[in-house]
């Protein structure tokens, strides 16, 4: 379909996901990355917002680095419609010919991105931890870094011939820049221009469930591995989370054992958490777990085994009997300063 010169990278496009008129945090995170890449390249950064009632989004996108915002508003697009969103994104890519397209790897972006890439017959890299411009085979091109095999190895991916290069990034992986309210940008309203064929799979309604989505917003996360259970079970984990003003989470073994729900699973097959403080207790530190909180500001590890690899990925460690350490921590946290 669209082919521009592989070496030209004058336009970067960001799909800025919004829900109920509010931008997802990952949209601003990838936009910040796009802005950072655009600087040295002299490229323009455009963002696409699709939905209904997203009037406040363009200003926020411009403040975070967009030079241009395409807004597609349509009452039929209040909720994610797979066919329609794919058609709109592909149309905008076809018209603007970006060299690079970034999308947030939410459960929605993870559906939209591959379909769009297939329709555009180009390459897509999932769940990048970094995107940078690097000279490979004598050409400066976008290079994506992804954790492979549950984070045991890191893989560099390129898309040498096809354009645009496409990549998804998970929430919390990239850093959101501070907004600059003095920035100016162009806002372009576009017609959805959709036919009946664009609603073969129709989203009827969104149903909210309690407890979902809290992990991504939390500033403190207390996460249990297999080892925490014998030290007091879920009650102690919750007590610790409450005292620290955070939410609970867990590793794959803790989740498989039914001690924490799937919505609170940390790691390669679950969620990525990047809170200010991540406290992990009773987890030995398998890479597919630790990759899920690597971007946290401060990591505290508590485990019985002083040689556990979990301490290699922590800022502070306490090696000791969890049955003593955890109640002591709860008590200390409850003490007001």
């Amino acid at each position, binding site marked *: 379909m669209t082919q521009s010169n592989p070496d030209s990278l004058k336009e970067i496009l960001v799909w800025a996901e919004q829900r109920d008129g509010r931008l997802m945090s990952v949209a601003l995170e990838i936009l910040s990355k796009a802005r950072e890449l655009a600087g040295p390249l002299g490229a323009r950064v455009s963002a696409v917002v699709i939905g209904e009632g997203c009037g406040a989004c363009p200003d926020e996108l411009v403040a975070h680095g967009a030079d241009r915002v395409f807004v597609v508003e349509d009452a039929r697009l209040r909720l994610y419609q*797979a066919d329609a969103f794919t058609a709109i994104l592909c149309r905008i890519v076809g018209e603007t010919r970006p060299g690079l397209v970034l999308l947030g790897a939410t459960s929605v972006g993870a559906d939209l991105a591959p379909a769009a*890439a*297939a329709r555009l017959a180009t390459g897509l890299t999932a769940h990048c931890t970094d995107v940078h411009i690097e000279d490979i085979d004598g050409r400066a091109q976008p290079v994506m870094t992804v*954790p492979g095999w549950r984070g*045991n190895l*890191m893989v560099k991916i390129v898309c040498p011939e096809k354009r645009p290069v496409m990549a998804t990034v998970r929430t919390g992986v990239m850093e959101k820049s501070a907004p600059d309210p003095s920035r100016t940008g162009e806002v372009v309203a576009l017609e959805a221009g959709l036919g009946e064929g664009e609603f073969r799979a129709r989203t009827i309604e969104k149903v909210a469930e309690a407890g979902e989505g809290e992990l*991504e917003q939390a500033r403190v996360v207390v996460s249990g591995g297999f080892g925490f259970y014998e030290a007091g079970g879920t009650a102690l984990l919750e007590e610790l989370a409450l005292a*620290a003003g955070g939410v609970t989470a867990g590793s794959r073994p803790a989740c498989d054992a039914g001690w924490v729900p799937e919505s609170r699973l940390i790691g390669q097959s679950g969620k990525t958490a990047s809170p200010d403080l991540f406290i992990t207790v009773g987890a030995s530190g398998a890479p597919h777990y630790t990759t899920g909180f690597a971007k946290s*500001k401060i*990591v505290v590890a508590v485990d019985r085994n002083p040689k556990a690899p979990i301490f290699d990925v922590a800022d502070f460690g306490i090696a000791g009997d969890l049955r003593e350490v955890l109640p002591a921590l709860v008590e200390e946290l409850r003490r007001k300063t």
Partner: protein
Amino acid sequence: MPLRILVCIKQVPDPEQFDRMTLDPATGSINRAGIAPITNPVDRHALEEGLRIREALGGSVTVLTMGPPQARKCLEDALAMGADRGVLLCDTAFAGADTLATSAVLAAGIRSAGDFDLVLCGNESADGATGQVPAQLAEALGWPRVTFARKIEWSRDGMLARVEREIEGGFLRVEVELPAVIAVVKRINRSRLPTIFGILEAAKKEIAEVGCAACECAGLVAEAMGLGGSPTRVAGIFQSHRKRQVEMIGGDAKEAARTLVARLREMDVL
């Protein structure tokens, strides 16, 4: 109405043993020696869902995989669980494929294997873990898709699926007419184990082999397959490095807790 169901499955190295994978620094190749291949865990749930739909509405379940000759094993396991027949997409021309080329070959293989109303997949594989193939397969087939499906209900004689599709903070209710691709998550069901009877029956069932020529007959050019049909390339692999420097806090439990909490408050993260 009986449904003609096709379930895509994949053989992967056992994810429980991924930490045994090492990188040969000299060659840059991955050493996965001794890691047992298994059927991708969530694909078993896709198969289970297919079998349940067949039990409820009637029809047939075909199971399909793309892989080396050894991938026949996961088809045999699926037949023992109750699938009716297997299709093995196996050709050196398919090797080195990224998700786009994989999806193109899967779609061609599905076309060459017959007419189907529903394609079920696991939402993602444990090894590549991109989760890109179901949506790209739907595009290659020209069908609508629903991914992250955690519940499927049927109405209008099974030609309309009502799907609960997971999303952050809850789920979406999605309706889709067949034919469609639906990718499922693990919580959709509990998958069954093969029975002795199932294993005995499986030996009588057919596994068809489909290669490059059959895919070309189904309309896919050879240039779209394997490494040559893959827009993405691996430019390098490296061992992930750790960057935090741990400070171990000693003393008895009470002392350690006091020191730690004080430090965290100083850093303004509590």
